[in-house]
């Protein structure tokens, strides 16, 4: 082991200690959590920030003149500033807080697309997408008569870039594309794709749910129009999410939902909407969750996203090496550029059976279609087993996965 590798693995050991949930036994075995792509675990600092807020500061935001409301508002808006800095948005007005990636995408479908599209227009997505980046577009197409078109992928699970580019025609109103595939881990060359879309005059929404946890994100450098992501995939609480939107676009969009907080003045004749980003934040928000998300960002900033990316890349390489040694394994998703996510099949064992056998050895993986049924159909399968690594995982976790797979082979021999 080189000096650099030793430092990396020591850093990982320190990171792991920060996640109290990992220190437990499941079914008599130390827990190996390999399902972070479904939901990532939270460091103690996030859990504590949420608890402290609930114990000491809770009140409604943007309303009260009393001290607790000020504290709650400061903490909540402070988290928005942290998010802005984390993804390098130009302005805090461009950070819309939502319940998650799904709501962020639905917001764009209904507020950006629906009022402006009709029959003859197209929404372009890819074959890699999660259902959350398919169904909102199907809905808006049904509502408006627009057409949903799908860019193809190759057998490695990589976008066919030439085909994608050729589909960026004049009648495409929006390109909605995942940054990283949740099911396969493919990292799309998103910056080049956005640059081409921009040349064609097509706005781009990036589903960044699986991008943000693994690498530094700079929305200005990417030059995307919308970037959607979720708190719970990036070590924060569930029920929190973000829609980054270019200010000029957000400004021109009608509100998504009506209610409190999104208004300046209401009469029964007319309502004046609040300024950005509050125009899109109707109702009392998930205050404690957003404060937790702010704490998660503090944690990631101090760990360093670049360091995390390097560590995960090494660990992913180790996982590929070890999985490759398992007899009868078929890796699904073999793109050249991947996040630390690997889907696979083992012999003729159904992924659901594999998940149960692994769970009984303390190893938590995701099984099934990963909310990407068209993608599974593309590979002619009903589902896969998926191991997804975060920076709190280590080579022991990978070894335990491989040992558990060997046991599964014995049960099904």
């Amino acid at each position: 082991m080189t000096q650099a590798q030793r430092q990396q693995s020591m850093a990982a050991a320190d990171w792991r200690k920060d996640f109290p949930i990992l220190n437990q036994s499941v079914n008599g075995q130390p827990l190996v959590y390999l399902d972070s792509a479904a939901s990532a675990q939270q460091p103690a600092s996030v859990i504590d920030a949420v608890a402290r807020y609930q114990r000491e500061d809770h009140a409604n935001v943007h309303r009260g003149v009393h001290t607790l409301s000020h504290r709650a508002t400061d903490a909540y808006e402070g988290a928005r500033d942290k998010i802005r800095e984390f993804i390098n948005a130009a302005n805090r007005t461009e950070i819309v807080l939502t319940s998650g990636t799904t709501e962020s995408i639905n917001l764009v479908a209904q507020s950006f697309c629906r009022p402006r599209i009709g029959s003859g227009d197209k929404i372009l997505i890819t074959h890699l997408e999660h259902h959350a980046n398919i169904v909102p577009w199907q809905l808006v197409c049904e509502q408006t008569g627009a057409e949903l078109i799908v860019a193809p992928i190759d057998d490695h699970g990589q976008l066919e870039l030439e085909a994608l580019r050729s589909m960026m025609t004049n009648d495409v109103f929006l390109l909605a594309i995942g940054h990283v595939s949740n099911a396969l881990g493919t990292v799309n060359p998103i910056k080049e794709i956005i640059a081409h879309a921009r040349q064609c005059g097509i706005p781009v929404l990036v589903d960044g749910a699986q991008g943000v946890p693994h690498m530094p994100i700079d929305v200005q450098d990417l030059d995307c129009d919308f970037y959607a992501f979720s708190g719970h995939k990036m070590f924060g609480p569930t029920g929190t999410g973000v829609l980054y939107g270019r200010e000029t676009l957000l400004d021109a969009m009608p509100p998504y939902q009506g209610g409190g907080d999104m208004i300046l003045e209401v009469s029964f004749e007319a309502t004046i909407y609040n300024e950005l980003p509050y125009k899109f934040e109707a109702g009392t928000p998930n205050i404690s969750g957003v404060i937790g998300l702010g704490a998660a960002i503090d944690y990631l900033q101090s760990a360093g996203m670049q360091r995390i990316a390097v560590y995960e890349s090494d660990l992913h390489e180790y996982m590929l090496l070890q999985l490759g040694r398992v007899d009868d394994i078929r890796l699904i998703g073999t793109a050249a550029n991947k996040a630390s996510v690997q889907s696979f099949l083992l012999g003729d064992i159904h992924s659901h059976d594999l998940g149960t056998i692994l769970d009984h050895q303390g190893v938590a993986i995701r099984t099934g279609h990963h909310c990407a049924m068209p993608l599974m159909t593309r590979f002619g399968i009903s589902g896969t087993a998926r191991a997804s690594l975060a920076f709190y995982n280590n080579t022991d976790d990978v070894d335990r996965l491989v040992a558990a797979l060997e046991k599964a082979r014995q049960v099904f021999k």
Partner: protein
Amino acid sequence: MNGHAAVTDDVLDLYRELILDHARSPRHFGRLANATHMAQGINPLCGDKLCVYLSIDDTEHIDAISFEGSGCAISVASASLLTDTVIGLSVDKAETVFSAVTKRLAKGGVDEPNDLGIDLERPFAKLRALDGVREFPSRVKCATLAWHALHSALHQDAQPATTE
């Protein structure tokens, strides 16, 4: 770490030989040409899909049965055992078996005296092979999928059965 992760008895009980045998070589597998009744079962959690076909004769007996589809070992084995069990039964008796099996599997490991209206000794003894699933709450739906489809087929429900 290698070698430490023992497969527990529960798992071996779940995937006992009879289950693996039926999963690998399902009985009455395929489409039934002269079906009078059919229904689909869908498990939205994992996307498993099974279709149960019945031929019900003039005396309200199931004179032929088959199933097709794809699923995990538990759902396929359960469907296969189902076909072995209910073929030849009257519609009423098949309904009774459906209720008994689904209730029994939902019991969560409680081995209650058999008061469910059928004798799980012969000719239903094989169904005990499914009991292992009671230790795995997330898998009970796999084991009951085909049974819900059977129930729908007997009633000729227009909607696919789900385990929800």
